[in-house]
């Protein structure tokens, strides 16, 4: 029996991966681009990539006590997560990963626009706060 497929029922997921801490900055970037490209290849949309940098792990994972945390926020069709996780598993540089569903039925293009607006807002606020600080300094 064929599964019912709705044309616009994309879901929002978040994958958090622990990447090998011994990697250089270049190869870390390569890993991130590799998997963000893979999401697009699987007909998903990358919403946001958040790198936390090197962090201490609460317990050893594959004999490492530190790891680079990378959070991939993306939208995709439900079937793609399986394929995506399979690829994560194949890569030696990924020590561990976790995928969580954040939202059901989202419009990816709308989301990306919203996310960018948010970032612009944050940057605007930062500029403003810096301006405020400058002002307070000059007032003093």
């Amino acid at each position, binding site marked *: 029996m064929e599964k019912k497929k709705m044309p616009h029922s994309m879901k929002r997921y978040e994958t*958090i991966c622990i990447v090998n801490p011994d990697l250089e900055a270049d190869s870390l970037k390569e890993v991130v681009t590799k998997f963000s490209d893979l999401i697009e290849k699987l007909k998903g949309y990358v919403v946001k990539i958040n790198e936390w940098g090197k962090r201490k792990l609460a*317990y050893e994972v594959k004999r490492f006590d530190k*790891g680079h945390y990378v*959070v991939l926020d993306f939208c995709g069709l439900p079937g793609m997560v399986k394929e995506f996780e399979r690829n994560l598993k194949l890569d030696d540089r990924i020590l561990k990963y976790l995928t969580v569903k954040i939202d059901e039925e989202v419009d990816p293009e709308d989301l990306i626009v919203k996310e960018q607006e948010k970032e612009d807002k944050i940057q605007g606020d930062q500029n403003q706060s810096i301006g405020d600080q400058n002002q307070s300094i000059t007032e003093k």
Partner: protein
Amino acid sequence: MPIDRRSKRIFIKHKTCRFCADPSQKIDYKESKTLAVFITERGKIIPRRISGNCAKHQRVVALAIKRARNIALLPFTTAKVRMKDYREF
């Protein structure tokens, strides 16, 4: 001598769920610092009767802690770390 019963009475401070009190506070498995409040030194989840969370938020907190454990943000247990510490002495 009569016992002063009033002084013996234990006063229990009424605990309120901090997530109900402040709805802007969100529970996220990525924020290990806020979740760390709800685990013991050994890494166990603190029960509702002690933490004061309401049932709804305790469920959310418990799920978040379990997710955080899975991705090594929080420990499952700290027993191994202690063993290591002992070995160093």
